[in-house]
């Protein structure tokens, strides 16, 4: 790693900072209007979607684009479990994660058969489109083109139509999954993930079961994004097949790159910026896309390693273990 690794003191400061940010965010509902609160909720969902994506394409180095498929599986899974089986929505979150992990298992099949690079990209894109075809045509289960409404629900007497209540649930889930992913990537497993990306043959020769590393990474990515799907179903209150198409995939890909490929911190930063940006650009009707494109291009030209690189330059506390800057 080209960066200086943080000292023990800096690591303690980082840990403090990690918990201080969500603690401060607990106050956010008192300082925002409902619209801003809605956007903030969307940022948390995007952060998880981007995190799952960057694990596979950044950390593991596999050009796989099944991320939106995991998202759709999680969203529809949560909606079906809540609307058809009457399960409490909160309970559907880990179950949607499990369904997303199953999606990850299926998506990893191609990678485990040795398919790599552009071929893996096309196969996983096809997987995403196949899932979307499924949402459209399994009308009795998914509502087809009409979409699927989430049943109303309350928690401690407060309706889940409240964006504030949703925010607290979303924040708890996001913090939990980001922390779990950070710990996973700092562990021996994280070292193996990086080794697979750097040199798969050499990794296999060190008795590291590369297939298992690939499989678990895809499944964890699917779990994280599946949970995000469950949050999304409650966030918008209605799931449509159109929400899980190529546009969503491209937006998530942009978030990964703008944040910094393979960086957990970058995933969160990229998601926050690119979720907030279109909202602020609404002040320039007719020019939103142009400004959006220009800003994304500017970030990538000025900071090819993404927003996270800016923070890494500021202090080693933002250096992630086993993170490697792309050439």
């Amino acid at each position, binding site marked *: *790693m*080209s960066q200086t*690794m943080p000292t023990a003191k800096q690591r303690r400061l980082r840990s403090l900072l990690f918990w201080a940010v969500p603690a401060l965010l607990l106050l956010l509902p008192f300082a925002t209007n409902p619209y801003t609160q809605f956007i903030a909720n969307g940022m948390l969902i995007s952060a998880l979607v981007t995190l799952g994506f960057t694990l596979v394409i950044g950390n593991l180095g596999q050009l796989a684009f099944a991320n939106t498929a995991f998202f759709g599986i999680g969203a529809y899974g949560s909606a079906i479990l809540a609307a058809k089986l009457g399960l409490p929505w909160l309970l559907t979150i880990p179950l949607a994660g499990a369904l997303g992990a199953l999606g990850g298992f299926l998506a990893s099949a191609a990678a485990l058969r040795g398919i790599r690079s552009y071929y893996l990209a096309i196969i996983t894109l096809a997987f995403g489109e196949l899932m979307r075809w499924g949402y459209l045509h399994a009308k009795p289960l998914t509502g087809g083109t009409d979409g699927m409404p989430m049943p109303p629900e309350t928690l401690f007497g407060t309706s889940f139509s409240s964006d504030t209540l949703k925010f607290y649930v979303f924040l708890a889930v996001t913090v939990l999954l980001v922390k779990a992913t950070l710990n996973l990537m700092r562990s*021996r497993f994280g*070292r*193996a993930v*990086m*080794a697979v990306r*750097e*040199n798969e*043959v*050499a*990794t*296999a*020769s*060190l*008795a*590291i*079961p*590369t297939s298992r590393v690939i499989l678990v990474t895809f499944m964890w990515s699917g779990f994280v994004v599946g949970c995000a799907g469950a949050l999304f179903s409650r966030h918008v209150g209605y799931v449509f097949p159109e929400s899980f198409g190529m546009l969503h995939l491209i937006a998530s890909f942009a978030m990964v790159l703008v944040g910094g490929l393979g960086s957990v911190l970058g995933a969160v930063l990229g998601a926050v910026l690119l979720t907030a940006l279109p909202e602020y650009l609404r002040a320039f009707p007719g020019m939103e896309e142009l400004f959006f494109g220009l800003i994304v291009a500017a970030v990538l030209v000025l900071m090819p390693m993404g927003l996270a690189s800016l923070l890494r330059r500021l202090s080693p506390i933002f250096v992630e273990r*086993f993170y*490697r800057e792309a050439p």
Partner: protein
Amino acid sequence: MDTPEPLLKIRDLHVGYGKKPILRGATYDVLPGECLTLLGANGSGKSTSLNAVCGFVTPTSGSVLFDGIETAGLPPHKIFGHGIAQVSQARDLFPDLTVEDNLRLGAMRRGGKALAQNLTRIYHRFPRLAERRKQATRTLSGGEQQMVAIGRALMSGPRLLLLDEPSGGLSPQFCEEIARIIDALKEEGVTMLMVEQNLNLAFRAADRFIVLRDGVVVDGGDVRAMAGDHDAIVRNIYL
């Protein structure tokens, strides 16, 4: 004196890349605790022989018996699990990982205590690596990188160490260092199978040699018995 039971028995080994045969019935043994060097011209099958032993290539026929276990056709990670580690010609390091992370990757299957003990042992053997433990491996010199590659292979506590041209790209001074490392490993009882183009190093470090030509063993013997008569071997290799 009785000859000990070989640790590795290669019998009638055939390996090819596509339709091109490389090894055409190679047969030889590696005895426990010795360093056997494979000599031969380019394309004679030396590195292919090592790659077949560690599972990087699958033999088309023949047998690779390691301590009585047939390993021919097993995947590399299973063969590694049996106690065979290779230091490849390209070294296959992870350049952006630190020295210590590279070393730890060599013992991913070992628990905390065994891993810590092995790490201490490697740092004791290679003090220079201890000094550079937090440094990215790509910032090391070629010789130091070779130390990391050998150290990483030793982290798993292998019973057979395969060394593919350990002197490749290194200065003459470091070749002597490699010879000293091999001497020390022999004292520890590590068995080694080495491919080496540098005949000075090969004869300085190895106990026995075999010569491969067109994928078969054509000559071999005790290095000490050949002292001072390397010309005959060179003729056998290249002429």
